[in-house]
């Protein structure tokens, strides 16, 4: 009897379920939808749901969403990255310097002539992204080789990269960026959707598949869940850890390039809280700081909540500072409810399996039958 196999009926999960993992983001999605409904009903002339406003929210969220997607991988693997906002600044400086320096001489630029526009843009984009990826690789390498906790490593590289950006620019904004960069990628639209949002959506979509469907994603969960077990199973944990931090830096590099396109200069003074916003977005979306848990769908919802609050408060005539108060509260409450839910589902699932034999006294035929299908 004890050797009988009792199998719960396998759930034939839909495509959406496969993307979101074994449990959904029901609660936080409900919160987001509720916010959108409240703001739509209460905003003057229901402007909240207008196409223009929607576009504005998309553009505002794109950059934080890219960073939050990287943070999702890092946090699921049991790490954290505090340096991504500083890498954005550094990458934007490298990108701006390359674009300005290679596309024209200062005299030509002042006459708005850019004879080597394509070369400048190509070098700026590649250089900016590569600079971010290089910093990320350094984070991973130090974490793995010197066994310094990632919190400390990334706090250190935050200061290093921000300082380096200031040294390169002398603390000044970088002039001489061709307006064409801003007019296309920066503020341009396709079918009414900002190019920045399109770029972010494509990249986040790829990362979603990478996390939910590939070997790399599966091993990311394994490392965060039990890195020793992953190592013993033959996973090259150090190599993948470096790859994860490198991915985060790569994304920061992309955000830096997008920033140059958006604001037509390197933004030395901005992005000081991007790192915390990205971590908050992931945490609101259900990514655990302890590793092993989280989904890209949750992070996407978590990234939109601050932007929706910000935008909604402005439309309602509140001071926008209330957004920060509200996001802070949402962060704490979201993580609290997530823990409560996990505790209760954990005990509910566990209860029957200790008595699996007793719980299915006459269920063997049924369960065998359904398993065979």
């Amino acid at each position: 009897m004890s050797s009988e196999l009792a199998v719960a009926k396998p759930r034939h999960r839909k495509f959406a379920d496969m993307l979101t993992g074994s449990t959904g983001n029901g609660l936080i999605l409900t919160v987001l939808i509720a916010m959108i409904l409240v703001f739509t009903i209460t905003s003057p002339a229901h402007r909240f749901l207008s196409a223009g406003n929607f576009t504005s929210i998309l553009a505002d969220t794109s950059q934080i969403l890219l960073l939050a997607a990287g943070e999702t991988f890092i946090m699921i693997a049991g790490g954290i990255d505090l340096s991504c906002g500083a890498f954005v600044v550094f990458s934007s400086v490298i990108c701006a310097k390359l674009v300005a320096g290679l596309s024209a001489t200062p005299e030509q630029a002042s006459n708005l002539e850019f004879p080597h526009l394509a070369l400048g843009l190509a070098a700026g984009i590649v250089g900016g992204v590569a600079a971010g990826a290089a910093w990320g690789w350094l984070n991973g390498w130090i974490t793995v080789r010197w066994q310094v906790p990632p919190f400390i490593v990334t706090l250190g590289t935050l200061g290093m990269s921000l300082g380096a950006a200031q040294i390169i620019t002398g603390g000044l904004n970088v002039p001489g960026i061709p307006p064409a960069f801003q007019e296309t990628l920066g503020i341009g639209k396709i079918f009414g959707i900002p190019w920045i949002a399109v770029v972010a959506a494509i990249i986040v979509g790829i990362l979603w598949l990478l996390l939910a469907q590939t070997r790399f994603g599966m091993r990311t969960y394994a490392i965060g869940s039990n890195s020793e077990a992953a190592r013993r199973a033959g996973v090259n944990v150090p190599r993948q850890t470096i790859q994860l931090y490198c991915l985060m830096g790569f994304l920061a590099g992309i955000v830096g390039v997008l920033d140059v396109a958006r604001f037509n200069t390197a933004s030395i003074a901005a992005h000081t809280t991007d790192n915390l916003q990205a971590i908050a977005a992931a945490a609101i979306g259900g990514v655990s700081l302890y590793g092993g848990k989280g989904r890209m769908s949750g992070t996407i919802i978590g990234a939109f909540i601050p932007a929706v609050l910000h935008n909604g408060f402005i439309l309602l005539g509140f001071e926008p500072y209330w957004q920060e108060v509200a996001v802070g509260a949402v962060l704490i409450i979201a993580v609290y409810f997530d823990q409560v839910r996990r505790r209760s589902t954990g005990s509910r699932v566990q209860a029957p399996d200790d008595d699996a034999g007793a719980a299915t006294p006459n269920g063997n035929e049924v369960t065998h039958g359904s398993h065979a299908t």
Partner: protein
Amino acid sequence: MTEQHDDVLVATGITKSFAHVRALRGVDLTLRRGKVHALVGDNGAGKSTLIKILSGALQPDSGEILMEGEPVDIASPETAQHLGIETVYQDLAVAEALDLGENIFLGRELLRRGLLGHFGFVDRPAMRERGMEQMQRLGTKVPSPSLPLESMSGGQKQAVAVARAAMWGGRVLILDEPAAALGVRQTAQVLNLVRRSAEESNQAVVFISHNVPQILEIADDITVLHQGRVCLRCAKADASVDLLVRAMSGALDSPADREGTE
């Protein structure tokens, strides 16, 4: 082409010292195909050291290990895996965030066919199906294969760890107190699994235990260590609770009764 050795792994004259402690003083061990071998002894008898040498985590100071007649150097845990030696540790055995199939195939993931597989897309349904087949073959129960292991009981998690090792351990399966942290019922489940694994997969299984009734229940061969030496080696038929307890406590530890040293 080559003859089948019934003695899958033969270790002779294994010694190992740590600073001032002589943990192993010339130990012999023979693991037979399809048989469960219990390695018994008090704390500090040298069981764990011997297991670590067989799984590649430690190197012996002297002695020889033959696998199917061929001398081997188990230089690292990776070497051990290549030789077909798989180890289940007391803890740290599974990734709780992953489901049954993912755990069994972690590090050896099944990829989808075609282009998606080329990009590293995993075939979760196939891993779950084959994971369940393996659990079924070993006669153990798990809830739905798509649940993360964190929602399972300790015994089920350990069962998954044993099933994983049994699936990949081609020739030798090492279990370091597989039931140490488990309740009575779960222990029975895991031991049953160990028994089935030896029979079904025709593997040589060696497991460490303190629990004498447990040993008598599932072991074919028994080796008792005391202070780094083999003080008793016998088949189950010749063993009794009394004999094992006396051996473990060192009462047999006189030259006349001792085997295993030259």
